[in-house]
C-alpha cells in the first residue's frame, strides 16, 4: 500500500517534470479546456438554448462526437488482438498506448453525454441506489454500463501492467490476461450497444437498419487505428521510446481492410435507399442531395465520401508504404469518418422529422467551444498518460532506483 502511494507520488512529480515543449503543449491544451469549461458554464446557466439544437433536431454535435469517439475507444482492440491473440511480439511495444488512448477517449465519451444533458445536476438519477435505472429496457442504460465497464477494464489492465513494470516484476498472468480477453469482447460491445441506441428506434427509418452496427465497427476500425498511427509517430519522435514500423504497418493493413468493408457497406446502403426510393429514404435523400430546397448536409457528406475514397485509394496503393502518404491517408480517413458518423448519421436521423418537417441544424459557437474543450481534455489526458507511462516503460522510473552505471532493465513487459 505504502509502495503504491509512493508510486502515485512519483507519478505526480513526474507530471511536472518536462521539457519546455511539453509545458507549452500542456499549457495550450489547458487553455482550450478552460475555454470549453467556460462555454459549458454558460450553457449550464442558460440551458441548451446556447446550442443549435431544436425540438426537431434534438441531438447534435455532442451526441455525434460521442458516437464517433466510442468507435475510437473500441479500436484499441485492434492492438490487443494482434498482440495477445496472434502473439505478435512487436505489437506489445504499443498495445499499452492503445489502452491509454481508450481510457482518454472513453472519458471524452462520458463527458460528451454529460454536456448533452439538460439537467446535469440530476446525473445521479442514473446511478443506483440514488437513481432509478431503467435496465434492461433502455439501451442508454446498457451504454452507461458497457462504457464504464470498458473504462474500468482498461484502467485495470494498463494500470496493473505499468505498476508491475515500475516494480520490476513480471506481471501475474491471471491478474490481467482474463481481463485482456474480456476487453476484446467488451470493445466490440461498446460500439454495438452504441449502434443499438439508434437501431432500436423504429420510428426513425434512417437508423432502424441492421447494417448500422456493422458499419459502426468497420468505420471505427479505420478511424481508431488512423489516430494511433499518428500518435505513435509523435511518441517515437518526441519521447525516449522506440516504436518500430511493424506495428504501424500492421495498423495500416487493418485500416485498409476495415475501410474496404466500410465502403462496401456504404454502397449497400446507397443501393437500398436509392435504387427503389421509398418514403423511408427521405433522410438519405436529404443527406446526399437535399430536399425541398434544404441542402445543409450535402457538402458535409460529399466531403466525407471524397476523403474516405481518397484515403482508401492511398491505403491500397503502395504509396502509403511511405510514412508521409500513410499519414495523409490517416488524416483523411479520420476526418472523413468523423463527418460520416456525426453530421452524416446522427443529424439526418432527425431530418425530416417523423411528421415530414425539414428543420436544419448547425452547431452554435458555444456548442463548438464545448466540443473543442472536451477534445482538448482528451488530448491532455492522453499526453499526460503517455508522459508518465514512457519513463516507466523505458525503465527510467523504477521502484528500486538502479545505480547510474547499472545494467539494462531486467523485466520486460509481456
Amino acid at each position, binding site marked *: 500500500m505504502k509502495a503504491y502511494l509512493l508510486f502515485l507520488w512519483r507519478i505526480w512529480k513526474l507530471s*511536472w517534470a518536462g521539457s519546455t515543449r511539453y509545458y507549452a503543449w500542456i499549457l495550450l491544451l489547458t487553455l482550450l479546456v478552460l475555454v470549453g469549461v*467556460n462555454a459549458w*458554464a454558460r450553457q449550464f446557466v442558460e*440551458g441548451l*438554448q446556447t*446550442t443549435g439544437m431544436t425540438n426537431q433536431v434534438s441531438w447534435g454535435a455532442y451526441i455525434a462526437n460521442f458516437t464517433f469517439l466510442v468507435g475510437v475507444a473500441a479500436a484499441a482492440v485492434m492492438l490487443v488482438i494482434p498482440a495477445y491473440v496472434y502473439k505478435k511480439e512487436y505489437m506489445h511495444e504499443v498495445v499499452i498506448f492503445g489502452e491509454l488512448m481508450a481510457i482518454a477517449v472513453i472519458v471524452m465519451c462520458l463527458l460528451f453525454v454529460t454536456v448533452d444533458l*439538460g439537467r446535469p445536476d440530476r446525473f445521479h438519477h442514473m446511478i443506483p441506489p440514488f437513481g432509478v435505472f431503467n435496465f434492461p429496457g433502455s439501451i442508454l442504460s446498457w451504454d452507461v454500463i458497457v462504457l464504464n465497464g470498458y473504462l474500468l477494464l482498461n484502467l485495470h489492465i494498463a494500470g496493473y501492467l505499468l505498476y508491475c513494470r515500475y516494480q520490476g516484476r513480471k506481471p501475474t498472468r491471471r491478474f490481467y490476461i482474463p481481463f485482456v480477453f474480456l476487453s476484446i469482447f467488451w470493445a466490440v460491445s461498446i460500439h454495438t450497444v452504441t449502434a443499438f441506441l439508434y437501431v432500436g428506434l423504429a*420510428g426513425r427509418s434512417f437508423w432502424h437498419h441492421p447494417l448500422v452496427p456493422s458499419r459502426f465497427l468497420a468505420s471505427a476500425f479505420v478511424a481508431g487505428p488512423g489516430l494511433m498511427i499518428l500518435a505513435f509517430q509523435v511518441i517515437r519522435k518526441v519521447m525516449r521510446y522506440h516504436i518500430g514500423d511493424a506495428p504501424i504497418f500492421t495498423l495500416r493493413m487493418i485500416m485498409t481492410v476495415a475501410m474496404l468493408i466500410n465502403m462496401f457497406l456504404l454502397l449497400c446502403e446507397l443501393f437500398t435507399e436509392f435504387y427503389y426510393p421509398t418514403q423511408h429514404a427521405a433522410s438519405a435523400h436529404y443527406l446526399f442531395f437535399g430536399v425541398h430546397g434544404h441542402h445543409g448536409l450535402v457538402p458535409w457528406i460529399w466531403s466525407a465520401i471524397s476523403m474516405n475514397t481518397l484515403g482508401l485509394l492511398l491505403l491500397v496503393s503502395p504509396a502509403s508504404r511511405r510514412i508521409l502518404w500513410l499519414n495523409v491517408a490517416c488524416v483523411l480517413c479520420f476526418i472523413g469518418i468523423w463527418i460520416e458518423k456525426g453530421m452524416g448519421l446522427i443529424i439526418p436521423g432527425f431530418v425530416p422529422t417523423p411528421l415530414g418537417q425539414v428543420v436544419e441544424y448547425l452547431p452554435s459557437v458555444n456548442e463548438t467551444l464545448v466540443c473543442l474543450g472536451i477534445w482538448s481534455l482528451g488530448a491532455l489526458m492522453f499526453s499526460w498518460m503517455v508522459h508518465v507511462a514512457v519513463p516507466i516503460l523505458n525503465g527510467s522510473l523504477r521502484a528500486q532506483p538502479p545505480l547510474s552505471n547499472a545494467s539494462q532493465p531486467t523485466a520486460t513487459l509481456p
Partner: protein
Amino acid sequence: MNNDPGQPQVPRTLEEVFRPQNRRTFLKGAAATVAGMAGLVAALKPLLALERGEITLDDLLQRHYRQLTPGDLQRIMAALETKCQQERGVRPTIRDLKPMDGVEFGYALNLTRCIGCRRCAHACLKENNQSRERPDDIEMSYIRVLELNKGAINLETSNVYYDAAQVPQPDKYYMPVQCHQCRQSPCTKVCPVQATWQEQDGIVVVDYNWCIGCRYCMAACPYDARRFNYKKPALQKEQINPNQDYLSNRIRPKGVVEKCTFCLQRTRDGRYPACLEVCPTGARVFGNLLDPESEIHYVLKNKRVYVLKEEVGTLPRFYYFFDT
C-alpha cells in the same frame, strides 16, 4: 522489447528523472497551480448568473415521483407553488390527480371535419403553460397541425407552417398530430431513468423533477410529440393557467422534456381536454375506451378508423376517422 539498436536506452537514476526540487522549481510549480486554479475560477464565472434557489439541496435529494410519500409530495407541490409566486407573481394550485379505476382514455379525430384552423394548438398553449416568445409562437404546443395534399396521406409533403387564416384550402386537408399515448410507447421504453411512464388510465406522463434531459425519448417518438425546454419557459404573468397538476401542466423547469397528457388536470376531473373544447367543427371525440356507452367507443366500432404509422407497432390510443 524496445531495444532499438540505434538508440540504446540508458537507465537514468531517479535524480535524473526528477531534478532535485529547489526553490525555483517549487515556485514554478506553485505558480502553475495558482494560475490553473485562477483560470478554472475565471472559466466558471458564468455560473454566478445562476438564479438563487434554482438548484436547491431539496431538489438534489428528491426521489422519483412513484417513490414519494403523500406527505413528501404535498411539501414539494407547496414549494413549487411558492416558487412560482415569487418568480412569476401568480400562485397556482398544483394538484396530484390520480388515474380513475375503470378508465382508459382514448381520443379520436375526425379528418373529414377538421379545417386546420389551429385553434386546438393555441388552446393547448393556454391550458398547459408552455413557453412562448410571442403570443403567436406555437412551437412548444403539443399539437402540430399538418396541411396535407388531397389524394394521399403523405406526411413527407405535409406543411406545418401554412397560413391558418386561409383555411381550408380546396386542394388540402388537415391532420392535427399530438401524443398518441401509445400502448407500446417507444419513449417510455428508452428513458434511462424511468422519468416517463404510462399511467393506469393510459396517459404517458413525465416527472419533470426526475427527467435528466437526455432527449432520448424525443428521438424515439414517431409522432414528434415531445418538446424540450431549451431554456427556462418564457411566460407572462397573465398567460399562466393557475389550475395545475404535478404530472401535467405545471410550469416546467429548464432542461426537461414535456408532452401532451390529454390535459389530465382536466380529464381526471371529469372535464374534456382543452383542444376538444375549443374545436369549432366538433372534429374531436374523447372518452373512456372501457365504457361501451361512450362516444369514443361508438366511433371506434362504427367509423372508418385510421391509425397513424400503424406499421411502427406503437398501438396508439389516438385515432383518426372519416365520416362516410
